[in-house]
């Protein structure tokens, strides 16, 4: 494959849906209903004016969303290994057919357990697979997503220490490069967060960890490998330091692609962990959803798991609710069943050896791209003094390129869409290296696709040295012009909803 020099994104100039339609247009005319009606809402609850929803016909709604999909460099059209840290892998489309089968789609969450034994068996079997992959004793697949799973880990830490009358432990330790959701989950569970800096080798500073632990340490949470792609080989030593003061160790395994079937959380000395079905384990991540995460623990912590989880009793399967020390229910019912079906289908299709091949292929693909990228003038790796092979992703540094040409990571990202590639992930917060840019070529990309990405970067690097203003004014063939990352600072309205945007724009205009 050569570079797509003539790529051009569809540019429909499509307005927001809130700006479309006109009063009185309808997609569906709901027939009248003369049966019994519910009691009207209390006056204080009832809104006084109807919501300002767009009013549109069906064909206009369909066109709107088709246009938006054409304007997106989505997972199913673009080589999205640039969407690093999301484990951008192929989720087999056939699995969508499974969950749309009436056997799943028509189930009611309240129907008697005797009538859903097959589904419970499937959930149980998935749990057994996850136990085998983590080395843990018990698992509950109840998280709505990765952060929810980590939050459950935090609640379990709290419940464990409380059960021992050890309520003074109010601190959770995180390496600074650990996913921001870890610190956020710890805060949400009421802990203070103690961050450990990185050394120049990109590993957390062990002396700082030793200085940080105390009888106030509830626990420690980390990713491994981290977003630099570095796998911390001293992970068991870190767990030992935390255990020595009575803390628990939680492994954030949201992205376990590099170690699947090769290294287990329990063997690294960790007490509990979380896995994402929708990233590592074959359920779709990129907006297909729904997400789901598993919370896995040692037998010592099993009593604190959220409920309900599936247990086997002879040939029958049941949902376990009756756990006096449980941290409680994380969500209604028994989890995101469709994600579980897709995930088990993916695991069973691959088998034990296939899962190991996923990890090995992802690592191989990443190292192939890595070798091509560092050949390019001005592109290096973050933490260059650490010569260990990166595993499933690489944090690159475009510092040298930026110094020589004025073209840094942000500018390169503005140029990538001109060649049909989505902008690359730069770094989670905090940014620990200069001009960061991250790529994650998972097992799902062909060698031709990997070569195409390397070629595009080579092209852009060449442009940076020969015609930097082409890049500075990019993108030229995308559906949006430059996104100004600093807009908020200039007072552009920050709005998370249509109403907030409308209000903010009105304020700005007045």
């Amino acid at each position: 494959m050569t570079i797509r020099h003539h790529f051009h994104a569809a540019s429909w100039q499509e307005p927001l849906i809130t700006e479309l339609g006109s009063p009185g247009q309808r997609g569906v005319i709901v027939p009248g209903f003369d049966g019994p009606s519910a009691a009207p809402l209390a006056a204080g609850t009832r809104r006084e004016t109807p919501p300002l929803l767009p009013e549109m016909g069906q064909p206009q709604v369909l066109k709107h969303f088709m246009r938006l999909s054409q304007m997106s460099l989505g997972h199913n059209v673009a080589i999205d290994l640039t969407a690093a840290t999301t484990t951008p892998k192929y989720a087999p489309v056939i699995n969508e057919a499974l969950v749309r089968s009436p056997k799943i789609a028509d189930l009611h969450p309240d129907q008697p357990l005797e009538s859903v034994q097959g589904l419970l068996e499937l959930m149980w079997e998935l749990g057994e697979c996850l136990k085998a992959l983590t080395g843990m004793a018990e698992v509950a697949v109840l998280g709505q997503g990765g952060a929810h799973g980590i939050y459950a880990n935090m609640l379990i830490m709290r419940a464990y220490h409380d059960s021992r009358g050890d309520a003074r432990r109010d601190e959770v330790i995180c390496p600074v490069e650990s996913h921001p959701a870890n610190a956020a989950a710890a805060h949400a569970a009421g802990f203070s967060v103690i961050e450990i800096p990185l050394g120049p080798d990109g590993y957390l500073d062990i002396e700082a960890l030793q200085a940080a632990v105390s009888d106030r340490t509830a626990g420690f949470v980390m990713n491994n490998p981290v977003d630099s792609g570095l796998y911390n080989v001293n992970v068991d030593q870190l767990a030992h330091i935390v255990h020595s003061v009575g803390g628990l160790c939680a492994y954030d395994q949201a992205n376990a692609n590099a170690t699947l079937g090769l290294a287990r959380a329990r063997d690294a000395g960790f007490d509990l962990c979380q896995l994402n079905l929708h990233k590592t384990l074959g359920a779709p991540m990129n907006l297909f959803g729904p997400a789901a995460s598993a919370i896995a623990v040692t037998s010592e912590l099993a009593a604190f798991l959220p409920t309900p989880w599936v247990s086997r009793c002879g040939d029958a399967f049941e949902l376990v609710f009756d756990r006096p020390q449980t941290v409680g229910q994380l969500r209604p019912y028994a989890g995101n069943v469709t994600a579980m079906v897709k995930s088990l289908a993916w695991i069973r299709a691959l088998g034990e050896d296939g899962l190991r091949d996923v990890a090995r292929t992802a690592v191989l693909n990443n190292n192939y791209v890595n070798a091509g990228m560092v050949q390019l003038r001005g592109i290096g790796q973050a933490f260059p003094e650490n010569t260990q092979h990166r595993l499933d992703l690489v944090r690159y540094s475009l510092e040298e390129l930026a110094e020589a040409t004025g073209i840094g990571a942000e500018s390169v990202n503005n140029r990538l869409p001109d060649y049909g590639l989505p902008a690359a992930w730069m770094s989670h917060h905090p940014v620990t290296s200069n001009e960061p840019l991250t790529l994650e070529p998972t097992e799902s990309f062909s060698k031709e696709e990997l070569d195409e990405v390397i070629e595009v970067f080579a092209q852009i690097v060449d442009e940076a040295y020969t015609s930097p203003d082409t890049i500075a004014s990019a993108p030229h063939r995308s559906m949006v012009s430059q996104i100004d990352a600093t807009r908020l600072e200039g007072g552009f309205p920050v709005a998370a909803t249509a109403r907030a945007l409308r209000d903010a724009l009105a304020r700005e205009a007045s």
Partner: protein
Amino acid sequence: MSGDRRDPPLLGVIVNPIAGMGGSVGLKGTDGAVEEAVARGAVPRAQDRAVRCLSVLARASSQIDVLSAGGAMGADAVRETGLEPVDEIDVYSLSTSEDTGRVAQQMVNAGVDLLLFVGGDGTATDVFRAVGTRVPVIGIPAGVKMQSAVFAQSPEAGGLAAVRFLTSGRRHWTLRDVLDLDERCLRESRLVPRLIGQMLVPAAPALLQNPKARSPLRAHSLARLGAAIADQVNPDRVVAVGPGSTAGSLLDHWKLPHTLLGFDLVRDRRLLVADAGASELARYASEMELVVAPIGGQGFVFGRGNQQLTSKVLGSLDPDRLQIVAEPERLEELLGQPLLIDIDDASVAASFTGYRRILTGPDTWRVFPVRTTVPTEGVLT
């Protein structure tokens, strides 16, 4: 800076032709040492750097008008790139501080949209004193010392930042520190950076030095930090708040005025002493809590920019009552280097060293090494 826009936009250009000359001949700066530098065979480099930067403008497709200082202070470099200044401002001598300041002021009066200066911290200081925050600036690095956060990563990066800023639909800028080192101390191998003030620079994070120091929501993050500090200090005690906007966020939170370059003493959320000196600090030291943030790019906690904290003051302070605060980005910028203390009394200094908890946000601490400095020859080279 608001209202009708000049079209094409107007860029002011000032070159400090002697900037950087001291560096090549082992002088750690050129302020007040031009003759010495020339005698040692120094070669001017500012003109080259200016041309590299302005070439980016010359290649740009959009029309940008240039107003430059005369001759070697700007016009020569502008012409070398094939551009022609719309006007020149006469200069009388080659780049004395007064000349730089006067020209900068005239440029603001002429309505420049952006002021580009080629030099080092000394030039930045002169420009700051003349124009303050009346116009956004970009420093093109050509000096010996460039501690200030107003410099582009390279001349080309500065040129691109200027083009982007002048031609973009909405212009955004941000406040960045201007720092200078006292060159007389520097020549004795002592680092004494001072916070001079803050200037507006275009918010083009990837193009300016210390890209990690950016935060599109800095005002918001400072407000959070201010609230976080307030949660930690005991308001019944005297609280001494150190220089800089980071430590000052506590006083912003309490809606009290803050001395940007000095210490304020507060008790019961009321201002006790504004801009306190060493003797006032010494008077309260044994009972007070101290809130300081690392100053400048090197992570000094004591001994830079806060010399009011003498060994005597710090000797009376309970080390547990020191709260170092920092925006996380400031700690990242150190790239693995520790925070530093440089005060005369080694045993007092030692009482504050080791891994300390630095408050970086609400209920969030970074465990970070704090060490003392051992002054060494050539520390800057």
